[in-house]
């Protein structure tokens, strides 16, 4: 790709921004389901049994990866801004990506 943006640190920025926006969209639904526990316990139970479906587990795995990517990406930014500079920034991006995928894999393997 012929653009000044095609490098690891820029892709890390894009992933951090996109994961943040995706989690922002998810949160209202998350709070709505939590609110069911107060007034509609039966509906909540139905919902929880639905979440046992394999496809939903797969979607949840994606959610865990997004969460992990946003958290590790945020820690990466904090390290850049508050710790002494390190020249292995691309390695840090690789580590954050690896940790995010590992978190997703760990969740998926324990989901059954």
């Amino acid at each position: 790709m012929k653009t000044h943006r095609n490098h690891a640190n820029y892709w890390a920025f894009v992933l951090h921004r996109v994961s943040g926006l995706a989690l922002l969209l998810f949160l209202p639904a998350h709070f709505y389901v939590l609110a069911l526990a107060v007034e509609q316990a039966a509906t909540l139970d139905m919902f929880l049994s639905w979440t046992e479906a394999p496809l939903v587990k797969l979607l949840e795995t994606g959610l865990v990866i997004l969460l992990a990517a946003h958290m590790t990406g945020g820690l990466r930014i904090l390290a850049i801004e508050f710790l002494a500079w390190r020249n292995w920034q691309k390695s840090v991006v690789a580590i954050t990506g690896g940790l995010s995928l590992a978190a997703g894999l760990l969740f998926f393997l324990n989901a059954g």
Partner: protein
Amino acid sequence: MSNNTLTVEIWRGREEGKFDTFEVPRMASQTVLDIVTYVQRNLDPGLSYRFACWVGVCGSCAMTVNGKPRWTCRTHVDKVADEGVLRIQPLKNLPVIRDLAVDMTEFFEKWTKAKAHFVPTATRHDDFAQVSPSDPKRKEATAGIECINCGVCYSACDTVAWLGDYLGPAALNRAWTLHNDVRDGGQSDRIKAIAGTGGCQACHSHQSCFELCPKHLNPTASIAGLKRATAKAALKGEI
């Protein structure tokens, strides 16, 4: 393109314009600036562009080459025209005067806004300052001092594109080198200048400036240093 010629698309006009296509003879070790100069001298004398030294010192020949800002005098065609076509445009994030020449006024005005100039504290009657090359602050200054003001980092910076007031990587890099210069007397004014809107905190750490700096400087690292310096100054109530 035949084996002996290269298809070159060159931007013509200002913000509005079009690409003109030229066939330029290939030569060994040919640079992008050689190509532009061939077009201007042999095919279209009306082409506007800017250069001076031809050897990577003056910083005046930067252009966008196949999508990336580069200094054209030290960019070999072999390195960038891997698909047989060369597309040359003016630098992004700066107003186009005409064709490949951009107006650098705002780029240099931002150096002034960042107080990126040396403020002397000694007179001609004082002895030379003794600064050890191994001093940690001097090492930080030395790492960023070789900037030639070519504007490549400024053109590659998305924060400059998104936030018009942003001082940009080059001015902030210079401010960082002066922040670490023990002889400089402008520290207080400078930290205030680079802490406000459009200052160092606006940087998103994309690091495109570092990726593309032809001198292999790291403005993102300099800006990160300024972020730490402004955070300390804020905690001390200095800004």
